[in-house]
């Protein structure tokens, strides 16, 4: 009584075909990632040393280390996070929890989507006009970071809004029924349960911001600097720009150096991400429903 009928067999055959196809496509995705990481590790590892990480470049950048660029990228990312996370999270809370569904809200949502679609070179020019010239920050870490922050805002807003929306409405209603204000509900119930999603947004932002080259080229990052930045109003070197420079602009560059710089850049992003991933896992272990 359990023999497969004609139609059962056909369904099973298709099921096998699709399972294989989907699996193969997934596997093919891993290929470029493995290729990139593999190449970088193999070709870049030999140049990585304490001196490479913690000294300044010398001799037309063909020798010495990349410390100013490493420090510069860390500073750029941190200042960009400081500027964009509070703003983005606040905007997302408003849009998710307070905003009435009217033309104004819809316009803001549309603006956010459009902002996400603006090419980074346009952000660079806008940042040059706004932060460097209009606000008179000059080409500086501050101007570059703010440009990056504007660019990353949609990522933070969208990720935060999604994670706020994923907290069940029933929780909010239970709270409101107890006489809680919207803000009390947000602070005590909604936000603690949305934190993991918000951190996901931050992780995405770090990854995006750390690697950007165009937006910082005109606004704060420079080719070479003989000293380290002492405030956010100084210019800085940055890993992404440094990678571009050592790959294309400097003659007689030892072949391994660009690989080493790229490896450090990726490693830095992973390191920064792993901090927030660890925090996220810790919080996720604590809160559950």
């Amino acid at each position: 009584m359990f023999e497969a009928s004609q139609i059962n067999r056909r369904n099973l055959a298709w099921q096998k075909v699709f399972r294989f196809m989907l699996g193969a496509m997934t596997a093919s995705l891993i290929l470029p990632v493995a290729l990139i990481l593999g190449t970088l590790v193999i070709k870049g590892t030999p140049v990585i040393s304490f001196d490479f990480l913690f000294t300044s470049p010398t001799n037309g950048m063909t020798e010495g280390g990349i410390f100013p660029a490493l420090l510069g990228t860390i500073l750029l990312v941190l200042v960009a996070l400081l500027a964009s996370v509070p703003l983005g999270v606040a905007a997302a809370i408003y849009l998710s929890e307070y905003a009435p569904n009217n033309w104004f809200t819809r316009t803001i949502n549309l603006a956010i989507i459009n902002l996400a679609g603006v090419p980074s070179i346009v952000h660079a020019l806008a940042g040059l006009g706004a932060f460097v010239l209009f606000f008179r920050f000059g080409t500086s870490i501050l101007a570059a970071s703010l440009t990056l922050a504007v660019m990353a805002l949609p990522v933070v807003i969208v990720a935060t809004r999604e994670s706020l929306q994923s907290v069940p409405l029933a929780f909010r209603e239970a709270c409101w029924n107890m006489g809680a204000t919207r803000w009390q509900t947000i602070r005590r119930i909604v936000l603690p349960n949305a934190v993991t999603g918000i951190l996901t947004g931050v992780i995405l932002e770090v990854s995006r911001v750390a690697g950007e080259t165009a937006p910082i080229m005109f606004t704060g990052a420079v080719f070479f600097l003989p000293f380290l930045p002492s405030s956010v109003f100084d210019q800085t070197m940055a890993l992404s720009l440094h990678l571009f420079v050592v790959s294309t602009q400097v003659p007689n560059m030892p072949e391994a150096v660009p690989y080493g710089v790229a490896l450090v850049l990726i490693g830095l992003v992973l390191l920064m991400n792993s901090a927030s991933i660890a925090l996220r896992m810790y919080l996720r272990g604590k809160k559950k429903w």
Partner: protein
Amino acid sequence: MVTTYSGNGRSESTGDESGRYRVKLGVENLSIHYGSATALENVSLDIRENEIFGIIGPANAGKSSFLKAINRMDMFNPEMKVDGRIKFNGKDISRIRNVYSLRRRIGVVFPLPVGLPLSVYDNVALAPRLGGQKDRTELDVIVERCLRRAALWDEVKDRLNSLGSLLSGGQQQRLTIARALSQDPELLMLDEFSIAVDPVTTMRIEDVLKELKNEITIILVTNLVQQARRLADRTAFFLEGKCLDVGITEDLFTGEVSDQRTRDYVEGRFG
């Protein structure tokens, strides 16, 4: 405020009524609309202090909307429009500016238990904390008292710090009741609380309600006709947004009704 105003002007059967009672909640010509859809139409009734007031009726009768209107939840739903008057302790609730203090006096229990993603302790301590209570010993007392009154204390006293949402369905519903009680409400509204609860737990909660009646007023929305009969002093029958009957519960079951459909419903002929 002592009044003998009788709800919709219809003479209610007298039975065991002394004729003098305090009206906890006076509802006059209440209508509720969601956009163009009507959820409740022209309902007038009185709910008296220290009674269990049952509301029975099939789905879409407007029972839950009725509760939402009492708690001013229309504030959170721009679609929901409430007309008519609801008086809580004689005060028109649409004129209360501090609706949060109104909601704090009204405890609500939902059909499906909503264990907030907090510890058992924090679930019950939430309402007092929202009200500004910070003192730990004070909170301890409130939490224990409310969990005891909700017949849950013995089962959770050893794991007050574990997540409330990990309790079983029946326990979560009693946790919800404990949470509602932690507001020290004058009025407790239960919306089909037994839907996700096993019969034994249901009986335990019903016993709790009978005791609570001495201190507070209870509105019991239920689609279990027999539950209304077991618990409610007076009962209203809602159908398709209209209140067809209000009266002493027993009268509804013995046939003293003003609408034939009420009798059909309580006798199980539809619904």
